[in-house]
């Protein structure tokens, strides 16, 4: 019934990561602001630590220096012997794991928010890594209600192949905030303020939880990641088509079999040939051309969250 209460410890240590990708400007700007003056993120009874995860990439205003930091938190990387010969981001992952982890241990931070931007039209998306994280589910439910009628889609990245090892994953409760559309290297006021508001509600939730408020069982509609779709390419690996105008900017909208998907440079339409309706997202994200991804398909699901209350 869900009223078997899931007992959680107080959320005492919270971190806010910006600059995991050095050219995603909302998070870089917010975190730098809060490092200088943390009043806005202060909440009773909880330590909220703003932190720039990839300072060298931020300085160069580039996604990464050697390798993508947000893919670097693998067990292999974290347990490798440390050394200057390791790629910069792997060294950084080890340092972050020491400060905010160790990943998987009782000493790890309770909550980490990781602030990202995307060139895709994803609005304010929350990224959930585990369907069984009742604390996170309750937080996302709270945030969605707080910002209604504006929407806050939830992307569930729990998938045997497609899940990746994020910087936030060192925490017990990792939350990704992905706000777009915004070009890399650009700061848009509306995107910046949206991210700020979502974070405000998230921290309010944590404060209420720590004060002992009980959150009853609820359900959360999510989009579970399904399949990565690459651009059509020629034998040399060059892309030969673009995201179709009908699909461009249509993140979270249904894509049905037969719908236009790509348009070749000379104007031919290529159509989606999957078995059923899917909900694409990360449509035309700049950083994913090199990861062979034009968009990712998702399927809708409703997750149940049990009641939670601080012990």
């Amino acid at each position, binding site marked *: 019934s869900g009223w078997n209460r899931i007992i959680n410890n107080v959320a005492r240590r919270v971190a806010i990561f910006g600059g995991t990708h050095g050219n995603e400007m909302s998070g870089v700007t917010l975190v730098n602001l809060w490092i200088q003056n943390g009043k806005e993120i202060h909440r009773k009874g909880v330590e909220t630590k703003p932190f720039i995860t990839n300072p060298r990439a931020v300085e160069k*205003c580039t996604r990464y220096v050697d390798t993508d930091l947000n893919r670097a938190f693998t067990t292999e990387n974290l347990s490798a012997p440390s050394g200057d010969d390791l790629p910069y981001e792997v060294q950084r992952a080890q340092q972050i794991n020491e400060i905010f982890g160790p990943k998987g241990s009782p000493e790890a931070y309770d909550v980490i928010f990781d602030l990202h931007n995307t060139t895709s039209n994803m609005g304010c998306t929350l990224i959930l890594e585990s369907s069984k994280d009742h604390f996170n589910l309750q937080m996302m439910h709270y945030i969605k209600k707080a910002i209604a009628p504006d929407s806050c889609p939830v992307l569930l990245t729990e998938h045997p192949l497609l899940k990746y090892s994020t910087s936030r994953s060192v925490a017990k409760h990792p939350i990704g905030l992905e706000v777009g559309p915004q070009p*890399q290297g650009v*700061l848009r006021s*509306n995107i910046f303020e949206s991210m700020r508001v979502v974070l405000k509600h998230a921290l309010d939730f944590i404060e209420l939880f720590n004060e002992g408020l009980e959150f009853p069982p609820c359900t959360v509609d999510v989009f579970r990641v399904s399949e990565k779709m690459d651009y059509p390419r020629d034998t040399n690996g060059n892309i030969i088509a*673009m995201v179709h105008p009908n699909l461009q900017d249509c993140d979270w909208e249904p894509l049905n079999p037969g719908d236009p998907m790509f*348009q070749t*440079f000379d104007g031919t339409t290529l159509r989606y040939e999957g078995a059923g309706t899917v909900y694409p997202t990360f449509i035309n994200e700049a*950083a994913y*051309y090199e990861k062979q991804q034009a968009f990712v398909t998702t399927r809708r699901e409703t997750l149940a969250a049990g009641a939670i209350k601080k012990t």
Partner: protein
Amino acid sequence: MEPVSLPALSRVAICGGTHGNEMSGVYLVRELQRQKLEKAGSATLTTVISNPRAVQVCKRYTDMDLNRCFTDAILSSPVTVATPYEVRRAQELNTLLGPKGKLGAVDLVCDLHNTTANMGLSLISYSVQDWVIMHIYRQVQRKITSAPVRFILLDLPLADVYSQDSLGKHGFSIEVGPQPHGVVRADIFNLMKEAVDQTLDWVQCFNSGSAFEGGEVDDVYTFVKSVYYPRDPETNQITAAIHPQVQDRDFCLLHPGDPMFLMFSGEIVKYEGEEVLHPFFVNECAYYEKSIAFHLARKMTVTIPPLQVKRD
């Protein structure tokens, strides 16, 4: 105005990838090369990826901005081991398409660019008295209805013009936005392709003797000055974002007293100039390193003469 006759345009160059992360031009030039398009009527067509190294790493440039390297001074500077890649490349392009200012130069250079600013389709050049360019603008503006079409003048003497389009006897840039750098959007690509198609169509008509009537062209904007981001005097960090009333509103009016920036602290910074002007290149990613938030322009109308190709 008196009718003008000008020599035929027998050699035309289309350049993409002058900035390596402005993707419409990169893919359009590659597509023209794939289609082996070598002629536009009687004119020969040359297609060039201007900055291949920057294209390979999908960055604006490797050492310095290629599109600032075409002044007479830089083109004639001696090359040493310390010379930046883009300066060498500019000199190579000057040999290929120029020499700038000389009889051997190609007749028309069309340089393809994208911007993160909401500028629709803009044609940019350094003179409003090049009648070839002005008539091309008029045709593009008449024929393209899917986006606003405007002309931007950066008024400089030819020797000081730093952009690649100055290599040809006639030259202009096609600037299409908004598009994030590193991304190719189908709608933006298609708009740029339309502009290139109309340009080549005009060239063919001109070369085959069509008479183009004179008249007025409007939506011509002259650069006046740049507006810089507010910064904290101690940390030098930017302290505001471009205000939502200016963001995405390129070419709209900015009046004295209108909001320009929204500080992170919530205060508004207002425009304190005396003249009503038009912002453009609003929130262009590449201009952050120069701390430029946007440029301001004056709007004008230009009278153009009737034009026909010069018969031998």
